[in-house]
């Protein structure tokens, strides 16, 4: 398979990852570090890899920060290294470091403060950060699948396989998810046996048995989080977003068996390419056939290093030395003795109570300096081409720490496990601190059996499989080799964030004592790998520096997700139309075809203006509004919310929801009504039509229908649950055309024919007529939102276009939202800017409605002293004192004498063609809201200060002569 890395072409094998293929091609320099730009190679195999992060693909579908060991090779793969400029081999910024400069914790905040941080921000931001962000939302979201099962097992290693097997045998429905493409975890390279068979045979048999018992096995699938009985699993085949899947799993029991992450030991220059985790090197060799080096030096603090070194000898690679930090072992297990004798026969130098102090070499390892721990001065130089290091294992217990879980310190492991679990979760195996194969498998098996039983499965799981593998590691925690204070700057703890022992020491010296504070100050463990390798190391070294135990230092809190996700994966299908539906009125196509400029407004696409009337909304709106007043026009009102209220109790029910009574409306008539929230604030207004004795149509603001329906349902169901009332949102069942202006009556007659002409001629203000037109229902309501003579036509959606076209041909040109707004501001009619949830009926000048004394929802709380205070807002009109200046919505209103004390603000404003000047509606403190008051509208970001005069809210035709004509 061909692939390219940083523009160079390479060949790889099927089944390789990018990391294994590059190493097989002799490429060991895989990235540079984020801060010091030090050359870096591969440390680990898995999402914990801190160095070899790749950018894959091209803009805009580029995906950054993909760990090379997780990226499965495919033909034509195009990957690039990160944090380098102009190239990986030669990086300009790394010269900063060559000058001896090391930036300690807090360096940026302390250094770049003169003249201000902003002066440096651009340059530093350019150097900072990981990878390149995709340019657009071009990565498809993963599919989402919901699963339910008796037992979910996270982890397909020894413990996980044991758990899944036991649960399935007990009769439970099982889902098993494993992060790697293959099951087995550590089993496949420990030369382990299970029930006498080779581990790989046993894995195959378990896989077959699980399939036979109906268990579902997900590979490439990582548990990224979970709480309250819901576990999120992210499956990323090939390691690359864009082809991923999410599973939302609801198991009755969840067995956490996700193993443990090997951690390194800090020594000077331990970040050089060629310093690799021992387990990673073994896996590279067994799974991918790639040798990390021909002369490795093995360094660690437990018995396993001998087993691994012996296996290397068996595979034809002779380690130059095995360096054990522990003093000589007092008791030797049979297995250890066997491994040591292999090493002895091969002539491998084994040193106990020694440590690697440092390595030589820049782009790779040339030699290691090794010294006895008691006398570090007596150091010797051992030539080698790589250092394989193992400092123990940190349990992957993230899923066991969600939902408020605490950690417990295991002294023998130098590591933390989950302290206690809610009843639906169990931890087992290495994730629970059981590091030896047989113990991990037995613990997993027992956990699976117990989980199945608790989930209701009745059968027994049978005998526990007997495993044998590497000996008990008998680890003695060892976090870092001795170093001078100067050398601590090159003892790397968190490789991804370039956090060194020196940074930890400095954080402590500056008073950052708690592990969480140290983390935030030094950036320890904040990268893509979330401190998987460096976190435990940091805590251990911190404990050492503080002179405390690791148990008392603790570890920083872990939060989901376990590995980096694309935003597309988090958002999922909740985007675009599926997040926020855009509704189209029946006239949508007509508007588009006739120059309508459509914009989203309150979930609807609505026409702002028509292009023929002006170059922009402002110009066209004036033309359209002026024409309505002088002649007439039609506007699409289909977005009007409509709720039908029916039933024997409908009238009494509505009486309790509105400030005025619905029960006094005669059939065939309508009323402008206002309803309140329970705290007394105005919720919405609209016209309520009485269609029959027991049927009403309540109209609501555009886009408010859903909310009002829930409000209506709530009072029906919770407060007056005996009421016989049925509610239906019929918003989309009716198209609405509003014909307004002096010419509207004649045009309606011409469009609808003689029969309707007579009926329309007889309609009084707020009266409506129901009938048929063109074979379908038509309702004509005489009501006005413009102050002109106007009619609302409610018709079946399919008839809307024909009726509209007829009215346009009868001489009523269309107008849009901009003109609608001008007309209603001229009349002082209210929209959401005034009914903003903070205004009472009293504030909005609805004293007439309040005087009716109808005890509806919300009225009880209106009688509070605070609502009568002089600082309460009052709806007023405003005009510029000089009659010319522009006043805009949002401007703050003050007295001229007290420019910094706001009395209120402009809620809506418009240039009125009928009046020839700017007018506004505003909410102004009662103390200053008397008509004729001179105030100032302050708008420093746009227009500056404009002297204004308070007027009545109705600017035009205060006697409402026109709409009653």
């Amino acid at each position, binding site marked *: 398979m061909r692939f390219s890395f940083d523009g160079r072409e390479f060949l790889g094998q099927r089944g390789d990852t990018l990391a294994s293929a590059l190493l097989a091609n002799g490429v060991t320099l895989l990235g540079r570090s984020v801060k010091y730009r030090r050359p870096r190679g591969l440390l680990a195999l898995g999402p914990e890899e801190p160095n070899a992060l790749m950018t894959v693909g091209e803009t805009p579908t580029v995906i950054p920060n993909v760990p090379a060991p997780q990226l499965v090779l495919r033909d034509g793969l195009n990957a690039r290294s990160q944090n380098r400029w102009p190239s990986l081999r030669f990086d300009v910024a790394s010269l900063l470091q060559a000058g001896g400069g090391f930036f300690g914790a807090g360096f940026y905040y302390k250094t770049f403060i003169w003249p201000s941080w902003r002066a440096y921000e651009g340059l530093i931001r350019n150097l900072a950060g990981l990878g390149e962000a995709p340019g657009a939302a071009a990565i498809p979201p993963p599919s989402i699948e919901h699963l339910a099962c008796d037992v979910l097992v996270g982890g397909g290693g020894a413990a996980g396989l044991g758990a899944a097997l036991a649960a399935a045998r007990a009769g439970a429905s099982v889902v098993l998810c494993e992060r790697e493409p293959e099951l087995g975890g550590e089993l496949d390279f420990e030369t382990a046996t299970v029930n006498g068979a080779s581990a790989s045979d046993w894995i195959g048999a378990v896989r077959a048995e699980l399939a036979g018992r109906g268990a579902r096995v997900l590979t490439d699938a990582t548990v990224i989080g979970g*709480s*309250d009985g819901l576990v999120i699993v992210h499956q990323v085949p090939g390691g690359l977003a864009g082809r991923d899947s999410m599973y939302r799993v609801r198991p009755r029991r969840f067995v956490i068996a996700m193993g443990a992450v090997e951690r390194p030991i800090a020594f000077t220059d331990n970040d050089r390419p060629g310093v690799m985790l021992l387990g990673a090197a073994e896996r590279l060799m067994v799974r991918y056939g790639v040798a990390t080096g021909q002369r490795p030096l093995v360094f660690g603090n437990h018995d396993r290093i001998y087993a691994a070194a012996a296996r290397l000898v068996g595979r034809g690679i002779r380690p130059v030395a095995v360096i054990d930090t522990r003093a000589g072992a007092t008791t030797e297990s049979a297995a250890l003795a066997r491994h040591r004798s292999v090493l002895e026969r091969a002539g491998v130098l084994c040193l106990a109570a020694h440590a690697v102090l440092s390595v030589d070499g820049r782009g790779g390892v040339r030699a290691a300096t090794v010294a006895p721990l008691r006398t570090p001065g007596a150091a010797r130089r051992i030539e080698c081409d790589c250092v394989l290091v193992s400092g123990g294992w940190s349990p992957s217990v993230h899923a066991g720490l969600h939902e408020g879980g605490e950690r417990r310190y295991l002294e023998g492991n130098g590591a933390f496990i989950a302290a206690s679990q809610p009843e639906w979760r169990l931890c087992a195996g290495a994730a629970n601190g059981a590091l030896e194969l047989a113990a991990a498998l037995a613990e997993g098996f027992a956990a699976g059996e117990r989980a199945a039983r608790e989930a209701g499965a009745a059968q027994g799981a049978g005998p526990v499989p007997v495993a044998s593998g590497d000996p008990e590691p008998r680890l003695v925690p060892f976090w870092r080799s001795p170093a001078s204070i100067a050398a601590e700057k090159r003892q790397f703890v968190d490789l991804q964030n370039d956090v060194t022992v020196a940074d930890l020491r400095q954080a402590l010296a500056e008073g950052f004592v708690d592990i969480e504070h140290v983390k935030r100050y030094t950036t320890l463990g904040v990268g893509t790998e979330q401190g998987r390798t460096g976190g435990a190391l940091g805590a251990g070294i911190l404990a050492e520096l503080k002179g405390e135990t690791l148990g008392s230092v603790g570890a920083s809190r872990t939060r989901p997700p376990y590995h980096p996700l694309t935003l597309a994966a988090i958002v999922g299908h909740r985007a675009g139309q599926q997040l926020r539906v855009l509704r189209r009125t029946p006239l949508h196509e007509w508007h588009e075809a006739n120059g309508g400029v459509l914009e989203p407004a309150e979930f609807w696409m609505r026409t702002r203006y028509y292009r023929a009337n002006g170059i922009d909304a402002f110009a066209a709106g004036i033309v359209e509004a002026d024409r309505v007043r002088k002649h007439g026009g039609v506007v699409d009102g289909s977005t009007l919310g409509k709720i039908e209220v029916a039933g024997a109790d409908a009238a009494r029910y509505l009486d309790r929801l509105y400030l005025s009574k619905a029960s006094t409306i005669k059939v065939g008539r309508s009323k402008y009504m206002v309803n309140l929230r329970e*705290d007394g604030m105005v919720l919405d207004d609209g016209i309520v039509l009485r269609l029959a004795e027991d049927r009403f149509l309540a109209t609501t603001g555009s886009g408010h229908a859903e909310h009002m329906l829930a409000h209506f*349902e*709530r009072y029906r*169901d919770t407060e007056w649950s005996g009421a016989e009332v049925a509610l239906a949102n019929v918003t989309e069942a009716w198209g609405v055309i509003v014909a307004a202006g002096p010419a509207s009556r004649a045009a309606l007659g011409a469009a609808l024919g003689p029969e309707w002409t007579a009926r329309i001629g007889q309609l009084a203000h707020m009266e409506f007529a129901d009938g048929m037109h063109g074979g379908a229902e038509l309702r004509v309501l005489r009501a006005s939102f413009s102050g002109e003579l106007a009619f609302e036509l409610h018709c079946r959606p399919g008839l809307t276009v024909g009726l509209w076209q007829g009215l346009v041909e009868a001489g009523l040109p269309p107008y849009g939202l901009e003109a609608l707004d001008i007309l209603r501001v001229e009349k002082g009619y209210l929209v959401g800017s005034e009914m903003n949830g903070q205004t009472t009926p009293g504030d909005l000048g609805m004293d007439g409605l309040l005087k009716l004394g109808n005890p509806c929802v919300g009225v009880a*709380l209106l009688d509070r002293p605070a609502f009568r205070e002089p600082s309460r807002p009052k709806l007023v009109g405003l005009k510029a004192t000089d009659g010319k200046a522009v006043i805009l919505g949002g401007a703050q209103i003050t007295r001229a004498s007290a420019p910094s004390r706001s009395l209120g603000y402009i809620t809506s404003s418009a240039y009125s063609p009928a009046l020839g000047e700017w007018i506004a509606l505003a909410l102004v403190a009662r103390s200053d809201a008397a008509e004729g008051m001179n105030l100032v509208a302050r708008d420093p970001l746009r227009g500056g200060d404009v002297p204004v005069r308070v007027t009545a809210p109705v600017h035009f035709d205060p006697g409402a002569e026109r709409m009653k004509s």
Partner: protein
Amino acid sequence: MNRLVCPFCGARELEEFLFHKTLPEAGASEYSAVYERTNRLDDSLEHWQHVHGCRAWLEVRRNPSSGDVLEIRMIGGGRN
């Protein structure tokens, strides 16, 4: 808590439901019912609507600190 069991529809994802309010103590004044609702950490009586389902209004008693739902009752019979 990421699921509610609707008495009419069964167990459904939380995103189908809309929280409305914590109910006031019995006998609270109208002012107190709106403005002085206590948030009890162990036992909270709430109104929810199964808004993207059967639209029933639900009285939910739950323990907000543990997320345990103690009781769900449909109010008003869920008619429509």
